[in-house]
């Protein structure tokens, strides 16, 4: 546990228990505060910000379980130990359910007490460390986004545009081989640009922010815009995108632009993994207060062991490595957008037969 100094809050209506606990904690270099009432204990926790709360289960006024519940409601990272006068399995289980990380039967044995406390504090240390790491990761993510955005995207955009211009300007001066190489350069640069843009969207977009501007969005519109946006690509592969139930009057509270993007990503994937001259279906169904948008293809499908990972950042299915390019970010982005809308996204698939991705969103009540 090292020499870290932790704040410990003791809550028990029996003075003798508080005293003996405080005594057992002496020498541990911790800051210990005790209080004899549950409600006051909760109050104190707000000011004191303890790392560990040790609380008696049975107290007059509010019970230990309730104290725990209230403390965890304002800071779920605080670790806690429940003291139980009558150590029944039931009360221990109850305590653990409410977020206690351990329990101690009374009378308290000093060795056991110190061990349980030390274990709880170790847990607290890990929680804090994890939080710090998560914050660090977030910061790196933001910095990386800034770098990608400013140092890569702008120059590449200028290169791309000038390639397009040069190809046009030189069109009557180049021989066939030169022209073809220039065309390939255009394609490669364009692919690279697309990849950077996808990264950017995923990394820099603070998707939670879109919630500030939620307003009623017609599902019909989302589908129409998403299909329009992939139509060229579909036509190129001779794939027909069919919509079923897409004239639904249902609306969701959300952001149209990002919802369209979430659906476009699913459609792009479906097109990418479909054989040419096949069909992709967009089906809208209603399920109580939820509206479901399903994108079904009859493409290559996804192996069962890959299914749980397809919504993870940067995941690229091993089976997709052949021939198909992509940054593996479309699906995670869709997932984040859908989750920001309090929705869910799921997938079912059968290798060789095709995949179905389903977005479920809470729909607004039809007026």
């Amino acid at each position, binding site marked *: 546990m090292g020499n870290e100094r932790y704040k410990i809050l003791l809550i028990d209506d029996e003075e003798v228990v508080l005293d003996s606990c405080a005594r057992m904690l002496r020498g541990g270099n911790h800051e210990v505060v005790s209080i004899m009432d549950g409600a006051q204990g909760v109050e104190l926790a707000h000011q004191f910000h303890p790392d560990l709360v040790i609380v008696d289960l049975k107290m007059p006024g509010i019970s230990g379980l309730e104290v725990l519940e209230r403390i965890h409601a304002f800071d779920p990272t605080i670790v806690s130990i429940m003291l139980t006068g009558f150590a029944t399995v039931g009360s221990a289980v109850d305590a653990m359910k409410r977020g206690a990380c351990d329990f101690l039967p009374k009378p308290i044995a000093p060795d056991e007490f110190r061990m349980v406390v030390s274990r709880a504090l170790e847990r607290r240390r890990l929680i804090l460390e994890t939080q710090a790491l998560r914050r660090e990761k977030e910061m790196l993510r933001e910095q990386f986004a800034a770098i990608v955005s400013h140092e890569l995207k702008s120059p590449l*955009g200028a290169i791309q545009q000038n390639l397009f211009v040069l190809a*046009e300007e030189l069109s009557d001066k180049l021989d066939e081989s030169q022209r073809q190489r220039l065309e390939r350069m255009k394609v490669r640069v364009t692919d690279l640009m697309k990849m950077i843009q996808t990264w950017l969207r995923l990394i820099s977009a603070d*998707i939670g922010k879109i919630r500030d*501007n*939620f307003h009623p969005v017609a599902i019909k519109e989302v589908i129409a815009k998403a299909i329009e946006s992939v139509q060229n690509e579909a036509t190129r592969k001779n794939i027909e995108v069919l919509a079923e139930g897409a004239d639904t009057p249902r609306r969701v509270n959300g952001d149209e632009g990002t919802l369209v993007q979430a659906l476009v990503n699913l459609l792009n994937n479906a097109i990418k993994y479909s054989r040419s001259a096949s069909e992709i279906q967009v089906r809208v169904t209603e399920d109580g207060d939820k509206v479901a948008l399903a994108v079904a293809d009859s493409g290559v499908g996804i192996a069962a062991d890959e299914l749980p990972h397809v919504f993870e950042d940067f995941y690229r299915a091993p089976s997709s490595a052949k021939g198909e390019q992509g940054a593996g970010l479309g699906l995670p982005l869709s997932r984040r957008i859908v989750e920001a809308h309090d929705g869910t996204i799921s997938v079912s698939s059968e290798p060789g037969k095709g995949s179905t991705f389903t977005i479920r969103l809470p729909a607004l009540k039809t007026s």
Partner: protein
Amino acid sequence: MSKAKQLLIIDDDVDYVDGIKAILTRAGYEVAAAYNPKSGMELLKSKPWDLFLLDVMMGRGAEGIMMARQIGKDPKLRETPLLIITGIREQIAFLFPGEPVHPHFVANDELMEKPVDPKLLLERVAALLKASEAKKAKAK
């Protein structure tokens, strides 16, 4: 062509502007450029133009859009056709969630995505100029 049409490009990337400028100049237009919204606005008001080409994703994002709105509100500038050129259409959705994204987030303006196809650019510019002339002739 009696007198070359006067076009103004406002985009913060010099190399990008050079590319666009080359296409337009070869097609016989007279092209000036501004590399930031501030000097863009000054140049915009300095003399009559036949068409503006505006990158709405200048700098950290919002400035180009603000500028497009300013142009749209100005009764004089509004008469000049505006061709909006944008980096990523979808990105706008993230920067300005909830705002209408496509295609006319500034009413009555044309929008093209980067990279612009040279032929398409010339077509759009010609069409916008023609429409604007027709409008002017009708007003007279």
